[in-house]
């Protein structure tokens, strides 16, 4: 499916002195999509967001919106609005005046202003709090004010800088769902910056994983998780067992991996020549030595349990399959009576050949 690009970023760079915060990034942001920029701190994701928002001038490159170059436009001239990390709710204005601010600047006539503000207030469910001030609001409510204040301007593109990082864990989950719902309701393109991969995977239609100023992979959450294209992405997104792989002596695309034995390069499992083999912890199965679990794959290895961590929903084991080679195994506690192996016990680890991913450097 080809989609229309709202924003085309072409070869954009931003240097701060000698530091290249964003380095030659090209990216299409589709109309009405929910895109997440994900990466560790200092990877340039916020700078990229600020470049799109107009708060930074690019050192090089072009940003087009609907085919028009907007790189030189200041933020107040772009049909783009931003929700800041601190929410930046004006402390001397009440909720209503905060939301109305952008419309007053645009000299929107009073009846229309009132109608649009009312609409925005009920869109983010702030009804009844219109006369409150920032210090009388909770973190989640402040975020709603920031959202309403941006959305009332009817932007083509809404930028959100770490929108949930200031909220506690429970509220964060609720707001994730609300943001997705809001996105579906208003039909505006959302670009969200986050360092939280769960947040990225659960909200986004597409995720751009960034590292040291560049985009390493731009893909759907599912592809990002199940088919990472590089070692960095595999390691950064979710938990992953990554083992060094060498071409097997026999050739024909087979690799020797310490602890896993010889594996074949499954179709579509990534780069060739590969240097690493990777498998997700939840795709490994544990059974008593010799016994195969019902959903086991075709491959197995003998192992000794070295560590057991209980997380409630799942139990995570560290098992040793060869000298110096440990695998992390996540087993769901799908029954109240599920019993995890204990430390020192010998077990067999099972997996399917197609779940092993081969990665380049």
């Amino acid at each position, binding site marked *: 499916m080809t989609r229309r690009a709202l924003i085309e970023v072409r070869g954009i760079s931003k240097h701060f002195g000698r530091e290249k915060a964003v380095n030659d990034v090209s990216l299409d942001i589709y109309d009405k999509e929910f895109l997440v920029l994900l990466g560790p701190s200092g990877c340039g994701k916020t700078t990229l967001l600020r470049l799109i928002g107009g708060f930074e001038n690019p050192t090089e490159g072009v940003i087009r919106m609907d085919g028009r170059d907007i790189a030189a436009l200041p933020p*107040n001239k772009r049909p783009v609005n*931003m929700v800041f990390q*601190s929410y*930046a709710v*004006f*402390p*001397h204005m009440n909720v209503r005046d905060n939301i109305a*601010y952008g419309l007053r600047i645009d000299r929107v006539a009073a009846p229309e202003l009132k109608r649009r503000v009312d609409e925005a207030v009920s869109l983010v469910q702030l009804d009844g709090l219109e006369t409150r001030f920032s210090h009388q609001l909770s973190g989640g409510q402040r975020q709603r004010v920031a959202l309403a*204040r941006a959305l009332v301007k009817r932007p083509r593109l809404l930028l959100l800088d770490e929108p949930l990082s200031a909220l506690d864990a429970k509220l964060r989950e609720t707001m994730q769902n609300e943001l997705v719902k809001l996105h579906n309701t208003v039909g505006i393109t959302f670009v969200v910056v986050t360092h939280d991969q769960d947040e990225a995977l659960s909200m986004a239609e597409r995720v751009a994983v960034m590292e040291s100023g560049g985009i390493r992979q731009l893909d759907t959450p599912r592809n990002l998780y199940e088919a990472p294209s590089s070692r960095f992405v595999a390691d950064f997104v979710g938990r992953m067992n990554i083992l060094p792989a060498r071409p097997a002596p026999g050739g024909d695309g087979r690799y020797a991996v310490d602890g896993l034995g010889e594996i074949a390069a499954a179709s579509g499992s990534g780069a060739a020549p590969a240097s690493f083999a990777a498998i997700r912890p939840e795709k490994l199965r544990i059974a008593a030595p010799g016994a195969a679990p019902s959903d086991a794959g075709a491959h197995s290895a003998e192992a000794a349990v070295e560590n057991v961590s209980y997380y409630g929903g799942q139990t995570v084991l560290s098992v040793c399959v060869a000298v110096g080679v440990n695998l992390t195994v996540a087993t769901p506690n799908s029954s109240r009576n599920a019993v995890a192996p204990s430390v020192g016990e010998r077990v067999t680890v099972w997996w399917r050949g197609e779940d092993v991913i081969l990665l380049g450097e």
Partner: protein
Amino acid sequence: MRSFLAAFFVMLYAPIVTLVAFSFNDSKRNIVWRGFTTKYYAKAAANESLIEAFANSLTIAAVNMVASVALGVAAAVLLWRFRFPFRHAADGMMSLPIVIPEICLGVALLVFFNQWWPRDLAWPLSLGNIIIAHITFTFPFVAVIVRGRLASVNRELEKAAMDLGASEWQAMRDVLLPQIRPSIIAGALIAFTLSLDDFVITYFTAGPNSITLPVKINSMVRFSVTPEVNAASTVLIVITVIAAVLAMRFQTARRA
């Protein structure tokens, strides 16, 4: 502990209380209490040169307040907003007039103005050099107070305003200014007070036709400390205390 505190306050305020009390004393000398009167206030009010000095002082303080606020707020906002080479040096240099001994600044200004400041200017231009001198030592106070407030202002507020369509000026007017307004008012009142009761620097820069109230009081005391001096001093005290109390109130005002 209590008696210590009491002694402390007596030490602090006994001289001032005495000064104010004796301004109401019905006697030519400040030694014995002879009964209550306000005639020395009337006498002071009738003293033309004293009133002229008082008018000079108020004019200087008012002009100084406006200029110091303009300079001080601009300096504070620039230092807060921008990063530039020698920013910290500029920051330190700006507050130097606060710590330089007043007497030195007074001598420096005397030498400075002696070089080129024209004499025999018409009022209020004749006060110009005193005003300039006062601005040099009061605007750093305004800058320091405003910067203290700016330190707690969220830098994203202005950006958010601009994101919502405001120009830089609109963002400053609608968002930054309301945040720092209490500190601006506090700074203005402090600049006014400092200027009104400054003696040392004014003494060095004032000409024979531009006497201020503190300088005038000083010259009156040379002959004798009459209750008239007490009355003039009391008026000065009342004005400065009111301004200082207001300044403190604005400085500690809570954000809305």
